[in-house]
């Protein structure tokens, strides 16, 4: 066996390659600081479709097609498709899988889905069960808003802790070791962590302990120092949750410097009125598939640790007064060779 597990961390000694990635985003994300790093910026969020849900699905199909094209992997050579999103019964991913038409695993890790998908794709390839695996993680501002909060045209003031669900898709194609410019070397699988937070309008505070738990496990399992990474990114803790995570890590004896950032804080600037920052399955996914992948390919980053974070509540559990269980999965992607 080439794969070893140490604590919560999978170590791929024949690291599967990330052959290509593609990021398709909405107009607001296209106006943000990372604008230039995305493959496609859509001019509107409905894309001429009859529903927001159809628009999100179309973006996923486009991102997967783009990623396969960039990876030069023909449809017939694709073994599996892994996908996840925020909607009930993950309809975006399942409906996209209907047209992608290869064996499909539907995933739900809330906004941690991209790391879960990359981890499982690497497991499938390294385990010899697949040669090429396509994956995508998506969210859409309006599909999420109407499901989790209010109708999109309802005028309501958001609390200062609220985050803005991004309209974005991140897709990738994982393939055999030694190919491509990037590879997946480690994956730290998160535990479900619940610190009793109950406010679905403050998910950053709910998710911060889960992120800290996975980060601590990662450094303990690998014996690495934070300096091993050019960038350590949480998924979508945003400006409320990220400082809390820094504090929790500091208390546990791990001090992280300026290389510790958050995808949700990178997507928008202060004039874009997203309150605390971005969130959603497409948040860390598009930052990975756009900004991070391009910088790894160009050699600007040598190795990154992406800690995607997800809140595992539903509208039902929140209304029934349950606390919010959260998860964070970490994935190490480095430049090959």
């Amino acid at each position: 066996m080439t794969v070893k597990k140490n604590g919560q961390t999978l170590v791929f000694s024949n690291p599967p390659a990330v052959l290509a990635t593609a990021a398709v985003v909405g107009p607001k994300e296209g106006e943000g600081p990372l604008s230039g790093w995305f493959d496609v910026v859509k001019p509107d969020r409905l894309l001429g479709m009859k529903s927001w849900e159809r628009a999100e699905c179309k973006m996923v199909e486009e991102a997967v097609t783009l990623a396969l094209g960039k990876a030069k992997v023909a449809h017939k050579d694709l073994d599996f498709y892994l996908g996840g999103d925020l909607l009930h019964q993950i309809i975006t991913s399942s409906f996209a899988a209907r047209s992608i038409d290869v064996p499909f695993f539907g995933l739900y890790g809330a906004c941690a889905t991209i790391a879960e998908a990359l981890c499982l794709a690497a497991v499938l390839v390294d385990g010899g069960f697949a040669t090429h695996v396509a994956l995508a993680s998506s969210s859409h501002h309006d599909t999420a808003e109407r499901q989790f909060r209010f109708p999109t045209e309802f005028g309501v003031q958001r609390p200062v802790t609220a985050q803005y669900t991004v309209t974005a898709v991140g897709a990738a194609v994982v393939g055999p070791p030694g190919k491509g410019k990037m590879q997946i070397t480690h994956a730290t699988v998160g535990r479900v962590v619940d610190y009793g937070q109950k406010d679905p309008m403050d998910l950053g505070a709910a998710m911060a302990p889960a992120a800290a738990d996975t980060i601590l496990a990662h450094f303990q399992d690998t014996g690495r120092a934070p300096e091993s990474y050019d960038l350590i990114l949480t998924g979508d803790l945003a400006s409320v949750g990220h400082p809390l995570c820094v504090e929790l890590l500091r208390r546990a004896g791990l001090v992280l410097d300026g290389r510790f950032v958050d995808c949700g804080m990178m997507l928008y600037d202060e004039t874009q009125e997203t309150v605390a920052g971005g969130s959603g399955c497409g948040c860390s996914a598009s930052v990975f598939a756009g900004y991070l992948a391009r910088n790894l390919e160009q050699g600007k980053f040598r190795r990154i640790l992406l800690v995607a974070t997800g809140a595992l509540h539903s509208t039902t559990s929140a209304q029934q007064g349950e606390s919010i269980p959260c998860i964070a999965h970490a994935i190490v992607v480095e430049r090959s060779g």
Partner: protein
Amino acid sequence: MVEATREQAEDYRRLVTRFGRRPAILRNAVWAFLVGGTICAVGQFFLGLFLLRGMPLKEATVPAASTMIAIGAILTGLGVYDKLGRRAGMGAALPITGFANAIVAPAMEFRREGLLLGVGARLFQIAGPVIVYALAAALLVAVVRILVAGPPGS
């Protein structure tokens, strides 16, 4: 699952509070005052218009309120009212235009699920609780009034 103990959860709650941000109360209040005040001034203008046409005050309030509801509905349809509400909070929500927004927004949103189970079933998703408890409160006040002062007209 890593479930925090009661002490850990309490400790974390304190940390969250300590790191918490305060809402920009002054800015919010100014926005609420300006937007809410403007909406009320427009309402007053229409009331004056109907009074000028010779309507008695008691009758004139009805078309004035209806006009404001229509304006609220149109602004919702144009995609303006949600932006007003985001900035002005209760300044946009409290006037009757806000009530129109609370009805029209779900009607627009759930139109795609059909007229019966979409619009029909979810039209009062936001306004429903307001109507239910406003009616309940009115009933309670009426009962108290009758008990204290006797039936109306007595």
